[in-house]
């Protein structure tokens, strides 16, 4: 059970709640028993009614995975016995039903999988509309990874250009620099859009400029720093060594300035230390001093920072 607060109540209130709980159980059992009876009688000769009867159980408990399986079995069976157009109507209805469920239960693996399965049965899935549904859900919970995952599924099957999704990540990040899911999506899109190393390198350099605004605005937020770390790491094998070091040096300037503005923040100090270690031209005492300061700012991770001493 996630995030269910334990509340202290009076005895009377507790009795009242218990009665309500028992009522709820009774109703749930009535629903499941009714469905199981129905199911035991149909002997795998399914009809549309099978879809109707199973709906109510899922509306009460979307985690009941065997019933999602059951619905797919019914549809597979009907597919052998029904006209194509009839089936398309059933699939469209199923999409509607899932949409209702998904808005109430946004984090159920089973529902999201069922939607993927049905969407591929449609002659023509309205992928733009699917993307909009995701955007709506991500406006409510920007980190819902099921939803982000479904977006990638849409991109794979729809032919919607990846650049459109890239622009979406720009919008989401500009709305909230802490949207780590959007930073992640952006990183995975970049290497797919720019497959030519030289193109990728120039885009990554542009990104270094772009991420600067985020680290300056939210220096305590790790999302943009992780992205920054990835940008420089990805550039390393695709540009010449001298250019690589020049890029790192030009990054070091603004990050050092930020350290002065935010002396209590570990992130600019940590990232600048990594840059210095990569460049490799800095005196040992200075680097050891940086490590000591990091330990002072962030004592929980003392052993990690100490491990960096071996890299000097």
């Amino acid at each position, binding site marked *: 059970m996630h995030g269910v607060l334990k509340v202290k109540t009076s005895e009377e209130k507790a009795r009242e709640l218990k009665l309500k709980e028992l009522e709820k159980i009774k109703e749930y059992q009535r629903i499941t028993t009714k469905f199981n009876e129905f199911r035991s009688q149909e002997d795998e000769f399914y009809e549309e009614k099978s879809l109707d009867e199973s709906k109510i159980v899922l509306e009460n408990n979307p985690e009941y995975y065997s019933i999602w399986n059951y619905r797919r079995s019914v549809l597979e069976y009907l597919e052998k016995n029904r006209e194509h157009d009839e089936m398309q109507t059933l699939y469209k209805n199923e999409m509607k039903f899932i949409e209702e469920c998904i808005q109430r239960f946004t984090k159920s693996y089973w529902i999201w999988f069922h939607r993927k399965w049905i969407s591929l049965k449609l002659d023509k899935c309205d992928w733009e509309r699917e993307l909009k549904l995701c955007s709506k859900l991500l406006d409510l919970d920007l980190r819902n990874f099921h939803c982000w*995952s479904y977006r990638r599924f849409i991109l794979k099957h729809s032919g919607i250009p990846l650049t459109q999704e890239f622009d979406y990540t720009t919008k989401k990040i500009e709305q909230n620099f802490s949207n780590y899911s959007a930073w*992640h999506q952006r990183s995975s899109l970049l290497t797919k859009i720019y497959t030519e190393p030289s193109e990728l390198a120039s885009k990554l350099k542009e990104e270094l400029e772009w991420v600067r605004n985020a680290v300056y605005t939210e220096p305590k937020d790790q999302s943009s720093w992780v992205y920054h770390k990835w940008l420089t790491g990805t550039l390393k094998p695709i540009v010449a060594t001298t250019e690589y070091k020049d890029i790192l040096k030009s990054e070091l300037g603004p990050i050092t300035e930020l350290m002065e503005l935010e002396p209590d923040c570990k992130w600019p100090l940590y990232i600048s230390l990594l840059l210095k270690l990569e460049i490799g031209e800095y005196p040992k005492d200075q680097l050891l001093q940086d490590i000591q300061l990091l330990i002072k700012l962030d004592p929980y*991770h003392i052993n990690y920072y100490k491990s960096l001493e071996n890299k000097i």
Partner: protein
Amino acid sequence: MTDNQLLKEKHVEYIINLDKKKEDFEYWVTEHLRMNGMYWGLSALSILNSIDKMNKEETIEWVLSCQQPNGGFSGNNQHDDHLLSTLSAVQILLQFDALDRLNIDAVVDYVVSLQQPDGSFFGDRWGEVDTRFTYCAVSILSLLNKLDKINQDKVVEFIGKCRNFDGGYGCLPGAESHAGQTFTCIGTLAILHRLHEIDIDTIGWWLCERQLPNGGLNGRPEKSSDVCYSWWVLSSLSAIDRLHWIDQDKLRSYIIDCQDQETGGIADKPQDLPDVFHTFFGLCGLSLMGYYNLEHIDPVYALPTKTLRKLKHLNLTWNKH
């Protein structure tokens, strides 16, 4: 709570009473999860050295009754087979030393049938792919000494595709890193003796950054802490020998604060209601860190080390206990 006391007896009580919670709605809507729940409860008792408190024969009978004609196990009677419940079934039988009563060939055929050409695994015949299922498949086959039945190189290749910009791993290629999925991927690579495929500095750093000022761990950046990550994050760090990269005393205090003083059991967060899932993973975290003289749990198989030591074919290179 300041004295950091672990309420061992209360936790044992809490777990053995779980099957009596029939007046809770939660009990009924989680019926399909009973096989996982049984594994969490039983393994928590193992950690507390109290496995004898469970009705062994009755449990074995029930587990065996959930094996389906295709060889897989369902989450409960009258539910469908799935790799998630199949792994739990094998883990339960192993802890009761009852693998000889299992139709092993049927289980192996079931697992093998779910591997795909790209190395990934379906969770069941319906085709959902997730690195959680890869872990389940690889763990089952390894416990049953049948890893040679699948294409292991392809498994490793698929896991490699799920690696992200931060060094962590997600459910699928392209999916955001999550501590739970990172555990399943590192665990898979460990079982297949391919830990050298991991960029330990990058993932180790990402994992240790999951610790928050309250001592607890989160599963993704900019999220709140939750006791279950005392397992997913900690086990991953332990498998790559980087447990010391977090502040263990702070994490211990966090887990202890999540105990329910009245009923026993551990919750996801301080003040929340406890459940068997968080009770097990909280105890796992404490066990991995070596507190309270608990039975040691293996960070890769999520089973007591002493149980695994009986399986002579296993080589637990990451486990010094």
